């Protein structure tokens, strides 16, 4: 589905991301983990071509056989929201406070399809139903601030899946939510990707969350993918010191017997790359 080769993102000659090879197969859920600043978000934003202009991007990102890097803005705009959709970290800041929920969910449908007004309305209700929002008929007329964080994130997910994207990028979609709500959102994302055979890149700094949802996990550290493999392999027999530290730092993963202090430690990135 998406294949990244020799991706280099830099800012005034300072390398921020260097990924030699990373593939997400159709229908696969790839978890991308790493600490803040490890380049996770930069990597996914480069897929959408939405990095700040001052950043230099080199290499190749091919999506369904088409090269995304260097693609004209007009072509990219057609792919965004239709073929590749994104869910953000903080739903309370990702919805326009001046627009009603129903209008925002229908946004990509208005842009990428030629559905009529009533068709869109109908589809919006279906979408809101499919992300398990209660009484969608009432909710379409609400403004974002009238919803809870979990409801807002479900709205964001409904917006993202509206056009049936082939790839969904979820950038820390549960980080800003209560722990009790996180589980529900995770289950929803998992179910949606299974039902529609949609590929997913799930970005998080929380290995426990990623483990639950991913087919494979890629660990990023200082802009590089230092280890990649199925969750069981990453959690049970991590190769890189940094991965061991990540596991140790996560209280929700049992059997974390390797205790390494994360802070102030510089990890050897040669292992298992």
């Amino acid at each position, binding site marked *: 589905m998406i294949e990244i080769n020799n991706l280099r993102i830099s800012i005034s000659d300072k390398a921020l991301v260097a990924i030699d090879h990373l593939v997400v197969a159709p229908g696969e859920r790839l978890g991308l983990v790493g600490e803040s600043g490890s380049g996770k978000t930069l990597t996914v934003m480069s897929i*959408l071509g*939405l990095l700040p202009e001052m950043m230099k991007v080199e290499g190749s990102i091919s999506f369904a056989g088409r090269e995304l890097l260097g693609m004209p803005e007009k072509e*990219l*705009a*057609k*792919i*965004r*929201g*239709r073929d590749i*959709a*994104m869910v*953000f970290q*903080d739903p*309370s*800041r*990702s*919805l*326009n*406070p*001046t*627009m009603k929920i129903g209008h925002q969910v229908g*946004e*990509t449908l208005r*842009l*990428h399809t030629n559905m009529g007004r009533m068709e869109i309305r109908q589809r919006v209700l279906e979408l809101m139903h499919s992300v398990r929002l209660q009484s969608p008929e009432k909710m379409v007329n609400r*403004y*974002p*601030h009238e919803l809870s964080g979990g409801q807002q994130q479900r709205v*964001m997910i409904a*917006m993202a899946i509206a056009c049936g994207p082939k790839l969904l990028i979820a950038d820390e979609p549960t980080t800003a939510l209560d722990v009790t709500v996180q589980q529900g959102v995770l289950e929803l994302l998992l179910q949606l990707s299974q039902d529609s055979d949609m590929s997913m890149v799930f970005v998080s700094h929380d290995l426990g969350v990623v483990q639950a949802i991913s087919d494979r996990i890629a660990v990023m550290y200082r802009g590089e993918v230092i280890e990649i493999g199925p969750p069981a392999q990453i959690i049970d027999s991590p190769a890189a010191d940094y991965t061991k530290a990540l596991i140790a730092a996560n209280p929700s993963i049992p059997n974390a017997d390797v205790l390494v202090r994360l802070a102030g430690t510089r990890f050897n990135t040669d292992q298992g790359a």
Partner: protein
Amino acid sequence: MNGPETDTIVIATQEARRSRPRSSTYSPQLLVGVALTGAVAAITLLSLFWTPWNPLTLDVENRLQPPSSEHWFGTDRLGRDLLTQVMVGGQNSLYVSIVATAIGIVLGTSLGLVAAGAGARWGAALTRISDIGIALPSILIALVLATAVGPGNLSVIIAISFWFVPVTARVVVGPARQVLALDFIEAAMTHGRGRIYILFRQVLPNIAPLVIVQTSMMFAAGILIEASLSFLGVGAQPPTASWGRLLNESQPLLQIAPYYTLLPGMFVVITVLGFNLLGDGLAVLLDPQQSRKGVV
């Protein structure tokens, strides 16, 4: 008293409280502003259909009459009813101000939004160009235009807009840039929306309160500038009545007929005060920090 019913009542009042802005946001400024501007607008609209006297009928014998039961506010130097003159004069003043404000707000807001979206360098360039526009007094521009194009409403409207456009652009560009930095803008970009759509459909609604308040303030300024220019003879030409021109005509007669200045002057004051109070009141009412959370 049984339980469920009380619960319903409590919820109902909470709903009502939530759906309506708190009464404290209806400030005295807003009420007085609405009353004053409403009165001026009503009187001016009325003059389109009915005036106490025909505004163009001359009655030189009865010129400069003091207020009487026939002419409530007296007559002007050609014997025309002063109240009628002021009512009809409002048409010209409001018309010029509405057109100039509309041009200023539409062009200025667009310019400000585009400059905010175009990045820091263009934003800085716009600010410098705006400074030039703001530095040139509109009275001076109007005087130049009056010589070039000839005096009249066109010169006045161009002169006022020439000042309004850069002022509005500068007011808009900062807040627009703040909104552009928010997450939902990035979200809109991931949906495949272009820059122009995002600026006008995503950013504009979020700075709408600012633009509305700005409109009210500019309208007041427009009235004042129109009156000044008509007073100087650059604006409305006879026989078109205008508050500024009435003041100009009454000025040499101040000692003989002091009431002559009173009515047109009062109308200018009431209108300008009204729109300024309205602007202040709206600023409080529409303050996003009070009425909504999550907006800049």
